[in-house]
């Protein structure tokens, strides 16, 4: 039963992603993107990564989608649904992305996945916190610095001139 559900969630993530890319109205795109990211969070929960699933819902659906909707509404004149949203390279782009997909698929089926023990025990939140503070302390600090830089940069770029 849960195999069936995870298949549905995975296919749903792809279908919602396709709708995000193809939708004429950019606001609808944002809503489809939210559903797609929610399905990805479902995949994380299935793969025993509860922490990442919760972070995905909080950061993406709570934060980033809200930001996207703000940006669409602040530039609303242009988010009008009568305006063409795709450029004239649709056919060429489709060919390129199908080619990239075929390449990835070929690599995927030719690679023998040396799967160890499927269903290895769940990594607890405590262990993730510990390894963030010990083995991965340097990248963690760099991420904090990058977040600070992004915050300052966003304020500087976004402020209106007097």
């Amino acid at each position, binding site marked *: 039963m849960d195999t069936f559900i995870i298949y549905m969630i995975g296919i749903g993530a792809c279908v919602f992603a396709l709708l995000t890319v193809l939708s004429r109205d950019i606001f609808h795109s944002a809503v489809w*993107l939210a559903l797609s990211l929610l399905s990805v969070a479902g995949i994380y929960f299935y793969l025993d990564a509860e922490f990442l699933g919760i972070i995905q819902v909080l950061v993406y659906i709570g934060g980033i989608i809200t930001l996207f909707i703000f940006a669409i509404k602040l530039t609303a004149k242009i988010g009008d649904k009568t305006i063409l949203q795709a450029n004239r390279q649709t056919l060429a782009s489709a060919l390129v992305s199908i080619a990239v997909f075929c390449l990835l698929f070929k690599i995927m089926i030719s690679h023998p996945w040396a799967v160890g023990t499927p269903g290895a025990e769940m990594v607890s939140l405590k262990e993730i916190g510990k390894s963030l503070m010990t083995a991965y302390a340097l990248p963690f600090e760099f991420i904090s610095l990058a977040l600070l830089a992004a915050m300052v940069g966003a304020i500087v770029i976004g402020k209106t001139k007097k």
Partner: protein
Amino acid sequence: MISIDFFVFISAVMFSIGLFGILTRRNVVGVLMSIELILNAANINLVAFHKYFGSDAGQIFAFFVICIAAIGSVVGLVLVIAIYRSRESIFTDDFDLMKW
């Protein structure tokens, strides 16, 4: 337990869809959305490898990728707002200031 192929396959499909979106969208916000799709596709792979190969590095890396995605979309959307203020447009065709 499903085999790892399913998750890698889903990830490849999502990556290709995101690539298609980046190439076709005229709206910069749409391009940013496609970038989020691509980063999520990479994340699915990382979490699946964490699950099937039993190392906690996958989750940590996925966490870092989510942080980078947040940074990218925040700065990108602020740039969209700033460009909209000065050029009254958010379409990629209209941004030709740096073309020779």
